[in-house]
């Protein structure tokens, strides 16, 4: 079990290092037209996302991952 977790963490660290080491990934400033679209923002539906986080935090044993919550609730 513990080894599994270590493996998972190691895999992610490796993945992150590979990505940060790959300076050739990415685009030039003038190639950002698509990425600049509102619907390509990482959090393109902030309200939906906040409501969902609150619902799932209240109904499941998991929370977090993508950001900091906005003050939990007494429901969990």
């Amino acid at each position: 079990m513990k080894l599994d977790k270590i493996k998972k963490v190691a895999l992610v660290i490796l993945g992150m290092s590979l990505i940060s080491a790959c300076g050739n990934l990415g685009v030039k400033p003038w190639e950002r037209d698509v990425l600049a679209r509102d619907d390509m923002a990482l959090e393109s539906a902030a309200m939906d996302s906040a409501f969902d986080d609150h619902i799932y935090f209240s109904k499941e044993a998991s929370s977090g991952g993508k950001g900091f919550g906005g003050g939990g609730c007494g429901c969990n």
Partner: protein
Amino acid sequence: MGVTNMKNNYRNIRNNLKTATGTLLGAATAIVPISSVQAVEASSEWETDVAVLIYNEADRVSAFEPAIATKKTFDDESVLGFKFVFDALTGASANGAATSDDVQTFTRPSGNGEYSTAASDTPLDDTFRDTRVSLTANYETPVGRLNKMVYGANISNEYDFLSLGGSATYLQDMNERNTTLSAGMSFEYDSIKPVGGKPVPLSEMKANTETQVRDGADDTRIMSELLLGITQIIDRNTLVQFNYGFALSDGYHNDAYKVTSVLDSNGDLIAANGLNGTYLYENRPDSRTKHSLYGKIKHFLNGDVVDVSYRYMWDDWEVASNTVDFHYRKNFSNGFYLEPHVRYYSQEAAEFYQYSLTDTEATALIASNGNLTSDYRLGDMTATTLGLKLGFLTPNGNENSVRLEMYTQNPDLNESVEAVILQYNYSF
């Protein structure tokens, strides 16, 4: 140039400023990193989103939740945002006790009055009623040309709960702004004041005609969280994000309204304390350490947007969960779009989760002051969400959207819970 054209041009510039950086403060803030064309950006008007959410479980909890969020970008590229959420909750909530072939009676949390559950029904406490107000403030400010800080503060209050929190996140752009690294810390202080006071953990529920000894009126919990992230632009149409989160909480973790049934060797109720069953108040550990790994890919595909994310979360209660989330935004002309959404969630139970106990198990657990919960939210469970969102523009160009989703929980040993989520958004 007419006013409308200027507005459109401004909007285009603003849109161009948005790059790949993630939202670390959850939905309250869209973090907009500094872009190479930022010098053109001028102070903006307040941009406001309003939304109403209706959440309705069949025969259980209903919530009505209006929210308003507003933000303004200043000349120096700093952004100030506020969000207010109101939440009215009513309905019935599973109290943790097992179903039985007999009618069961429970004392209300206040100690005044009782409620009954018919044979074979899931015991639900129908006194669940609360109102929550939450206020969030965010401020992001450039530090240098390629980095910035984002600060957040929040307060959330309901009848039996108060939460105060703050966070600070540092973001660094690199590789010609194709990579953004982030590191954030948050703290939260919760004050919990259960209706009727804190039950003594592992004590037996007593009839409302008897005296229930309490373990004080209120308690606290402190949580701190670390979040490390990397966002990487892969190509003109693709970006990815990875986060690692570590959260530590210390203090009162019990749900004061949850109990566990103690049954005889035949699985039947054992009458005690003026009730026809025996029920122990739960006893969760007083600390919890959680880890999460989160990854997300956004890809622009022939005019549409594919958004896929995955989270693996595990903790020292031995809860482990997988969450897969998929959105496909099909864009049509004039700002109209349809967006199907599928979410799948599965979790492994906390090590101290029990659907019910035998009297022998209960005696041993009490003697060792062991941990215990029968809250199905900490049991083995899968859950699915299926939804569809429809977005369109009003004639003046403001964005609207409506989404309808079905959320189904399938807990092991417990009855399924089905909920309908309906939400309307308007931005101006």
